[in-house]
């Protein structure tokens, strides 16, 4: 087992252990914190697919995070108020079943990503960064000024959506759902990375001309990866909405795109468990520093700066050493 694999196991099991330890210590809040880490890590895992493997530095993943969130919020609201979502041409009602919501979130994010990707993937480098931001900002401003679902005030989910056979209001059970989804997506990411598709995707990042000269069109590969990436981040958004029982345009703001990106970079770009390590460190720092001093952002900044300057390749870079490509 390589050093990275060991660290991955430690990270994965460590996250799983936190809520149970918290429960034993009688500190249920840490369950919520662990859930938050799991969900935001999931958003990072999604972005990591595009950014780490495919080299697509999307500064607009908040769009998918937010759309996932709104999918959950809107469906739940309609279910709660028992108003149909669509009355014509066919009746579509809301839902408070997580499975349904996830499917909808994934489908909508994939669709939106397909459209955005088809346009944005013609650009590269900083232009790609900015055009993805542009789309996210459009959606952000749309959400702020669109009155139907609360606009800037957001939308509350009064009762957390349900999952067949589980009580989602129990923090531990909700955590386990999120954890399971995270692990499933990590597993999918790992398989993707090692698959033929993953090989092509990684070459699309390293040298797109080479990929084309091998008979594989980089555009198609990237587009599919972008869609999968968006779907995962959207799923995270749906879970995040359920965690907070609230969605608002702030989920769509560029700060969120930046934060997700920071989880990935902090953890180690392209490393499977990088987003988990990054999200955990960031959130724990935010949590502890916020409790200690009003000037916590200053210290957060200094710590982040030290990490970039002195730790090459993020947390996993320093713990697991240089990446090896067999």
């Amino acid at each position, binding site marked *: 087992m390589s050093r990275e694999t060991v660290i991955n196991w430690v990270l994965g099991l460590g996250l799983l252990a936190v809520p149970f330890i918290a429960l034993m210590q009688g500190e249920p809040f840490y369950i*919520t914190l662990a859930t938050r880490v799991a969900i935001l890590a999931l958003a990072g895992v999604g972005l990591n697919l595009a950014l780490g493997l495919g080299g697509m530095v999307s500064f607009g993943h908040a769009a998918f995070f937010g759309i996932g969130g709104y999918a959950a919020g809107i469906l739940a609201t309609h279910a709660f108020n028992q108003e149909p979502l669509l009355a014509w041409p066919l009746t579509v009602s809301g839902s408070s079943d997580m499975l349904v919501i996830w499917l909808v979130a994934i489908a909508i994010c994939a669709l939106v990503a397909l459209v955005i990707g088809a346009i944005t993937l013609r650009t590269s480098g900083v232009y790609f960064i900015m055009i993805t931001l542009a789309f996210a900002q459009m959606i952000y401003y749309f959400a702020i000024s669109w009155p139907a679902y609360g606009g*800037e005030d*957001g939308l509350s989910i009064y009762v957390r959506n349900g999952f067949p056979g589980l009580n989602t209001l129990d923090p531990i059970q909700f955590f386990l759902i999120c954890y399971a989804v995270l692990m499933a997506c990590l597993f999918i990411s790992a398989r993707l990375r090692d698959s033929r598709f993953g090989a092509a995707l990684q070459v699309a990042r390293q040298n797109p001309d080479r990929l084309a000269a091998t008979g594989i069109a980089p555009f198609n590969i990237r587009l599919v990866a972008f869609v999968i990436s968006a779907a995962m981040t959207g799923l995270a958004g749906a879970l995040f909405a359920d965690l907070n029982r*609230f969605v608002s345009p702030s989920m769509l703001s560029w700060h969120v795109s930046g934060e997700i990106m920071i989880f990935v970079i902090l953890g180690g770009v392209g490393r499977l468990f990088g987003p988990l390590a990054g999200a955990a460190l960031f959130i724990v720092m935010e949590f502890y520093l916020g*409790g200690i001093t009003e000037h916590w952002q200053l210290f957060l900044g200094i710590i982040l700066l030290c990490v970039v300057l002195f730790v090459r390749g993020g947390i996993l870079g320093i713990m697991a050493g240089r990446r090896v490509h067999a």
Partner: protein
Amino acid sequence: EPVKVGMITTLSGGGSGLGVDVRDGFLLAAKMAGNKDLEVIVEDDARKPDLAVQIADKMIQKEKVDVLTGIIWSNLAMAVVPSAVGQGVFYLSPNAGPSMLAGKGCHENYFNVAWQNDNLHEAMGGHANSAGFKKTFILAPNYPAGKDALTGFKRFYEGDVADELYTKLGQTDYAAEIAQIRASGADSVFFFLPGGMGIAFMKQYAQSGVDIPVMGPAFSFDQGILGAVGDAALGVKNSSQWSKDIDNPANKAFVEAFKAEYDRLPSLYASQGFDTANLILSAMKKADVKDADAFRAALKDAEFDSVRGDFKFDSNQHPIQDIYVREVVKEGDVLTNKIIGIGLEDRSSAYVEDCKL
């Protein structure tokens, strides 16, 4: 019986001045009361809804607070309040008053100690009538609070609207809007542009040489912000439920104590924080916080000396109060406000009927 209060407010980034004032007002009241049983923990939400939710969870689950308060912004309140009151704690709003929470979404554990969001705008509509304005140009940012503001203004305003403009949230340049105002032939301007937007608008308005009278809610003319707007604000009429020259003993004591403690003049937000703390203190005298029903009833009685004078709760647990009209004046070197009249008397909120309490 000790009461633990968790204050979630904005202490960093843009808009942190408001949070700082609410906190300082609150802590001042606690200090003046000298009640050892009131324990307050304060944390910064950085104006991020999800961070606010996280802190609320932490305060409820880990710190086991009895009362939450402190949130400045409506969108953060909407994120935190429903789930917090759902978990059985009390929430006392020292600033935001979204219509949802005043109407359909009201809750027995939610009290608003400031105002319903529309109140100050409504009062300005009332003032526009009494000032004799016939054609007012109104503008606000394009988001729910902005729309509520213009709706609120129009609710009592009887004249014509020259034009209605929604600006971009966070916009910093208003040359185009000012040109529209000049061209519209309006006899007055009503605007709601909170924070930096209002500062930028007022400065640019003054620089443009347009001299149509301007009015707005207190948010753009309050103590914390007046210094930054500068002389451009002189003479502007604004509406507020509080002013430092309201003549009652509680207010006098508050203003003096605040100046002594923090070496600056108190603001609207400081007064709201101050009142919130005193409301809690008054309830603590009457009931044990562990007895939720009794404590709720005690809060509802609101038997404390509000710095704004008479204060009582309507059935939706939002204040019924006078909204004053103030004018920006200069006292020595310092810009401040002076009450010139009352915009609306004993105003409750437009959404009371929707509330099933």
